[in-house]
């Protein structure tokens, strides 16, 4: 075995290294060691080193894959099991995974290096690096894991770190509001992912990618439902219609994070998921057609919106969405190799653009072009593009407001009715005047108090205890009787009588 083949056994280090960096930096913050300028280089160096380590391992595996062929599926152990399915710690290193993961690792390392200077003296310097490490670990899990469950763990780690970074400037209400918006929209996708995983557990008894994509393992209907869940997840993560609005709001975070999340890496996670599942998708042509439609509509939408944007980051993000939509179209048409290459090239190019965004005003020689004349002429279309087709407002009216209303009604029901029936702690009447702390409220509480009262009475009857228990009284009375009998027996005549009586009985 050459060492280049063995290096594939270290694949788990790729997500683990950023996690270790995270733990170290987090430990420094918790111990209060991360203050001032002097603390910054160590944090940046630790995180950069972790990212570089991941990249180097991936490059070595790539080299091994080029020389000897891709290592493929590797099982590292069981995570937990329940019933007939098992969650494993497995990694899948095929050309697709290795290519995308290597690009992601490269971009991750570059962005780490860039951020060290960009975020100098920011209040949340360490916080930013912690979130970025979490993201790197998560995205590598998504790309490299050999099963859906582990990928979902990474998927969620990406979601959480995205939330943390959009809300980076948490003092501003817009930032936290946008973070919440993005997070909740992404939860819709997570629900789809979970749906797919649940179906996989129920029908296949396995989460491993190879068994999910094995041809002929599922009936048409099952395959369709399974694929549908994952497609929803992919559309949400890659900001395709109808989930697009979150990504424009997500630009609230610091520029390097926008670059890596929405410009380059995370936005492609959905595309990657589709590529990973393309053998499964191939079994359901109608869903493939749906992908094409979603891609085309999103592309049109993003193109129209991008024509009227007036700031750099918004223009860039709509361009990104446009390109990603094209990838979905390609996948829908079955051109997976094209989509893969497109993904990698686009990721690299867009990172550079996003990282340049803050200096764009200085770099650009002349003012940007205005919106094209035909768009300016059509007032309706222009307004629609400017308002991003009112998707935000639609979501607000159709989803958020009814939910809020419903929640409000439920709250009323809770306080007016359920709380009173169930009772609240610390309220209600004491069971007895001299026990002020033993109070009971609500129906179950009163019931308990009643039962307790009964039990206490039983206890008083049962026990031989000091507070006048009935058994004690009975015993005392019996003692009195016995004493009387003893007294009587002490007198000779009664003793004699007793002896006589005994003899009579014996005889």
């Amino acid at each position, binding site marked *: 075995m050459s060492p280049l083949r063995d290096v594939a056994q270290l694949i788990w280090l790729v997500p683990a290294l950023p996690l270790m960096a995270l733990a170290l930096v987090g430990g420094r913050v918790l111990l209060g060691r991360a203050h001032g300028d002097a603390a910054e280089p160590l944090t940046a160096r630790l995180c950069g080193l972790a990212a570089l380590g991941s990249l180097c391992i991936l490059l070595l595996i790539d080299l091994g894959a080029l020389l000897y062929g891709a290592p493929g599926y590797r099982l590292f152990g069981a995570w937990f099991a329940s019933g007939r399915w098992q969650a494993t710690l497995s990694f899948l290193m095929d050309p697709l995974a290795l290519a995308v993961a290597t690009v992601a690792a490269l971009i991750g390392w570059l962005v780490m290096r860039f951020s060290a200077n960009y975020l100098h003296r920011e209040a949340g310097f360490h916080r930013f690096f912690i979130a970025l490490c979490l993201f790197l670990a998560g995205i590598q899990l998504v790309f490299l894991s050999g099963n859906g469950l582990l990928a979902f763990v990474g998927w969620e780690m990406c979601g959480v770190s995205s939330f943390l970074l959009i809300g980076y400037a948490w003092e501003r209400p817009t930032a936290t509001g946008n973070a919440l918006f993005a997070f909740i929209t992404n939860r819709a996708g997570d629900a789809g992912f979970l749906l797919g995983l649940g179906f996989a557990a129920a029908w296949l008894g396995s989460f491993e990618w190879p068994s999910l994509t094995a041809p002929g393992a599922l009936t048409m209907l099952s395959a369709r439902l399974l694929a549908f869940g994952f497609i929803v997840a992919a559309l949400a993560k890659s900001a395709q219609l109808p989930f697009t609005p979150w990504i424009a709001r997500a630009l609230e975070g610091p520029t390097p994070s926008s670059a890596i999340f929405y410009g380059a890496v995370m936005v492609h996670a959905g595309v990657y998921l589709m590529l990973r599942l393309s053998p499964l998708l191939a079994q359901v042509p109608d869903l493939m057609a749906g992908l094409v439609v979603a891609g085309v509509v999103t592309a049109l939408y993003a193109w129209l919106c991008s024509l009227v944007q007036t700031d750099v980051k918004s223009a860039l993000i709509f361009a990104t969405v446009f390109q990603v939509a094209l990838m979905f179209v390609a996948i829908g048409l079955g051109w997976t190799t094209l989509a893969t290459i497109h993904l990698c090239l686009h990721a690299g190019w867009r990172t550079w653009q996003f990282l340049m965004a803050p200096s764009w005003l200085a770099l650009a020689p002349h003012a940007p072009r205005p919106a094209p004349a035909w768009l300016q002429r059509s007032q309706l279309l222009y307004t629609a593009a400017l308002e991003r087709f009112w998707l935000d407002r639609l979501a607000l009216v159709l989803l958020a407001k009814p939910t809020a209303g419903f929640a409000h009604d439920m709250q009323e029901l809770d306080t007016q009715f359920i709380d009173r029936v169930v009772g609240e702690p610390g309220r209600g009447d004491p069971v007895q005047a001299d026990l002020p702390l*033993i109070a009971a409220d609500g129906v179950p509480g009163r019931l308990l108090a009643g039962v307790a009262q009964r*039990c206490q009475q039983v206890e008083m009857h*049962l026990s031989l205890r000091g507070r006048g*228990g009935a058994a004690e009284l009975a015993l005392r009375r019996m003692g009195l009787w016995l004493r009387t009998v003893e007294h009587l027996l002490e007198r000779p005549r009664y003793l004699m009588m007793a002896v006589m009586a005994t003899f009579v009985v014996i005889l």
Partner: protein
Amino acid sequence: MLKVLVFLPVLGAAIVAMLPERFAGWRWRVAMLSALASLGHTLWLAAAFDPAGLAIQFHESRPWNVRLGSFFALGIDGIALSMVLLTALLSLIAVLVSRRMSAGSRLYFTLVLLLESAMFGVFTARDWSLFYVFWEATLIPLFFMIDRLGGPDRQRAALNFFLYTLGGSVFMLVALLFLYDAAPGHSFAMNDMAAGGRDLPLRTQLLIFAGLFIGFGVKMPVFPLHGWLPLAHVEAPSPVSILLSGVLLKMGAYGLIRAAETLPAALLALQSALAVLALVSLVYGAVLAWRQQDLKSMVAYSSISHMGVVLLGIATLNVVGLTGAVMQMVAHGLTAAMLFLIVGLLYQRTHSRDLADYGCLLGRAPRFAFFTAFGLLAAIGLPGTAGFVAELHALVGGFSAWGAWVVLVFAGLLIGAAYGLRVIGRLCLRGLPTQEIADMTRTEAAAAGLLAVTVVALGVWPTPLIDLVAGSVDRVGRLFGG
């Protein structure tokens, strides 16, 4: 080996008793040394014990009374070993927290060590007559400890305790004699009696079991036989309460398991009745504990409730339930000891056991607050504590035996949470004026910490204990086809 275990504390007791008055400060040290030596010895036994090996290990037997057929026979299986470990640990705690004791220390340390010896004897005896002797031998030190060192109502409590348990053990003795008479071997050795008892007709088995059950049920205690417990616990000095609830109650449950081995047909016939008794004890104890404002009697009643879980586990007669019973014996031993320790220390400082007299412990006594909250949460059976593992086993075992009836157990657990959280809310949350109280000393905190670590260790990693008892529990379970 086991002879050393049983008589090592007696040696310690003799030294403590004979120390002259000018060496009064040495009493605690000698007692500590003796308790530590016992704990070390039990740990060595546990290391040498092979769970997959023979049923009874370290067995040693010599005829005691040849004419009667009684033996001085000692030996342990996994269940007995877990109880021996618990005894050694809690005896150490009881000695450890009594460091400041001045008045009556000679009496106290001597009696604690004698009690430890008798408890070891109960758990290691492999002969029913020897078992009975040790069983009665535990009463004497306990009686004097409650009577001489207890609270204001101590004489009545001591007498009450003595009469109740003696009354129970008279029934036990009669049942044992009956069994001796009925079994063909005419030997008191546990194995012989078990072999003879299994072949007895059901009626005889039922009669014998009834006698044994009264004896063990008083000790455990089971619902109508628990009258001695609240008063004894409330009046006993707190280290004695630790041993009383931590180990003495387990003797009843342990005896019941041994009786189940001897009279399987009776157990099978009475299975449902035992389960009903267990559920009644469980709910009854919990309800009464909820109604107490006196902290010590609250803990005492909660003991009844928790021992109901043990009885329920035994009554399932399947391996999971029995494992749960043994686990709960250990878990309750640890948590009840911890609660009595804390309540006793609080009483020592404030001279009140009424919850209404306390304020918030947080400001002045953070250690007290932490251990109070920890002990109560452990008693509730929070996941991550030993009680959770035990209750889960008992519930799973009970569910496979009776199905949905075990929902009553949840009622008991829920009420348990209600009174536990009430005390936590009173003592460990801000809002009330701060209680002016000296915090736990380092020794006391070490004792409580030792218990807490054990509780968490068994809760997070129960496998060693389960493995230790698995072989023995399997053997018991096989008798009932489960």
